[in-house]
């Protein structure tokens, strides 16, 4: 096997192993979205009958958006693990071995899709079993790769910021600064069509707006919705850019 690719898997596997050793992540990672499902989606029931509400019921509207939310927040905090590894000297240790910087970066990135698939699958099952979500199987199968590329994009971004600031507090501040507006403008909580015109026009610049639209379309079986190809293109481009950025900063990092 090519050494570059072997190294990616060696590092990625180790990252996953460390993640699995600490099973609390699964609990805390899933806690927030499930609380939203249980305590927030009932609020939407009254609103769901309002004229102009896009989906047939509150859960059909909220659950797909929540999957995107989980990826947005989950992956955006990936950088914390990297800061820990920087501090322990591990990153420096492997930077002295004959391993390409790209292999190190991609090894770290590799962890995210695996974790996200597991989380998203659990969330979908919970939503279907306990909250009566109806899903279109074909749509969901197409949704998973979408979640993966969004996760890779956000994780790479988070890793890059982590390499630059090298400090948990700063990383948390920066992450909140970006993720909260992206999340609110994406219309996860309420239909964006209910918002004032100005917010609607700003929301056009939030890639997550399209992601949430596409997720709703896919879960509800509207696989042909125009938002689906659009969002794949947007996040494919963003994903490539952020991963390359992460590799570049791994190359330059003075860890």
């Amino acid at each position, binding site marked *: 096997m090519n050494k570059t690719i072997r190294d990616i898997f060696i590092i990625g596997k180790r990252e996953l192993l460390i993640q699995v050793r600490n099973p609390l992540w699964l609990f805390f990672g899933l806690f927030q979205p499930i609380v939203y499902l249980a305590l927030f989606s009932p609020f939407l029931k009254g609103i769901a009958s309002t004229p102009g509400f896009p989906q047939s019921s509150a859960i059909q509207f909220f659950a797909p958006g929540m999957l995107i939310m989980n990826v947005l927040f989950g992956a955006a905090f990936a950088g914390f693990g990297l800061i820990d590894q920087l501090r322990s000297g591990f990153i420096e240790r492997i930077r002295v071995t004959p391993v390409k910087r790209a292999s190190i970066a991609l090894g770290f990135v590799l962890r995210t899709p695996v974790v996200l698939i597991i989380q998203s699958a659990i969330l979908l099952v919970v939503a279907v079993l306990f909250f009566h979500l109806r899903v279109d199987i074909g749509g969901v199968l197409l949704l998973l790769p979408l979640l993966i590329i969004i996760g890779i994009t956000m994780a790479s971004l988070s890793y890059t910021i982590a390499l630059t600031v090298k400090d948990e507090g700063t990383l948390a501040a920066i992450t909140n600064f970006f993720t909260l507006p992206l999340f609110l403008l994406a219309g996860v909580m309420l239909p964006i069509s209910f918002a004032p*015109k100005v917010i609607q026009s700003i929301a056009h610049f939030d890639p997550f707006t399209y992601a949430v639209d596409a997720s709703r379309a896919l879960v509800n079986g509207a696989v042909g919705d125009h938002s689906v190809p659009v969002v794949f293109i947007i996040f494919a481009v963003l994903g490539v850019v952020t991963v390359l950025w992460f590799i570049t900063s791994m190359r330059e990092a003075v860890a």
Partner: protein
Amino acid sequence: MEIQDAQFIGFLIALLAVGAVVLFAWHVVMRPRKRGTKKKVASPAPTVIMAPAETPTTALFSVPVPVSVPANLPTGQSAIIETHNLRRTFASRGKRGKVEAVRGIDFQVLRGEIFGLLGPNGAGKTTTMRMLCTLLIPTTGSVTIAGHSLSHQHLEIRKRIGYVSQVGGMQREATGRENLMLQAKLYGMTVAEATARVEELLTLLNLHEFADRKTSTYSGGQRRIFDLACGIVHRPELLFLDEPSTGLDPQNRAQVWEQVKKLRDQGTTIFVTTHYLEEADALCDRVAIVDHGIIVAMGTPAELKKTIGEDSITLEFADSTQAQYVSMLLEGSPLVRSHTLEERTVRLYVDHGDATLPTILDLLHQQNRPVARIALAHPTLDDVFLKLTGRTLEASEAR
């Protein structure tokens, strides 16, 4: 509706403006503190560095030990590291611009020796080592390591060197064995090769007992030995150790050094930084003393100590005036090779301390300068450091 939109836009603009002001204020508040700390490291350099160059140091160097390397290289041995005018400047955030961490270092490390880079914290030891380990790109200068140029053969160099940083680099959530396996695989070993090599190392370093526990449960000494194992998993020709014994108790320290010596005896070249001078004296074949980013002395510990004179006599007086007087009195005296003055203390470097001491005491008695305390000591590398920089290593650490 339109009025509401206008209000909303106004609110957004106000929010952005407040954000910008806060960011700017943060930047302004943060900047001086950063510059302040940098300054502490950087600015004393010129004053202190000039002192030894003008005062007795010149005499010191005109005697046996040259600063430039070739003369004290044992002949017939080849160099594994060769640096020429190695420099590293860090951009500082203040307007003053730059911090020169390493300011032109030339040295050679020979195959099979333990070479120590000594000096206080902030002297440029770690920066130098990080450049040699391909972690930091030199600002200028050329370096050859194991026959490969540092500027464009990183991969070749990385295959041949091992590096153990100050913090080690063990993953806390993984076991010691897993850490070693990962390292072995990253050096391209197959799983079978890696397993065999890790087994061999665990036996060699007597680590089986801890190998399958998470490294977060290790004591400082256990972790350090594992760090060392990690650095030699691929049998490097050249091993870099950054402050290997810092933070260890004497027993663990001895154990680490025992392993290091064993490695040297098996042919590995060791490049080590330390600020424990006694340790360097006992264990290094040759040392270079760095201060403020330049090498102030280089040679075997014995050679360096010889430049100081055989012994040192420390005389403490009741007050600094007395000390100054005695210092002037002994200036140019044939009895004394050189001396330093620190407040109430005069330190003399002499060839035969036990014979010279009575003469000095007679002299002071004649001059009616009573000595409060007196000590006779054989020279240490700390004395060399004091001689060259005008301060003790502990004093430089404290600053």
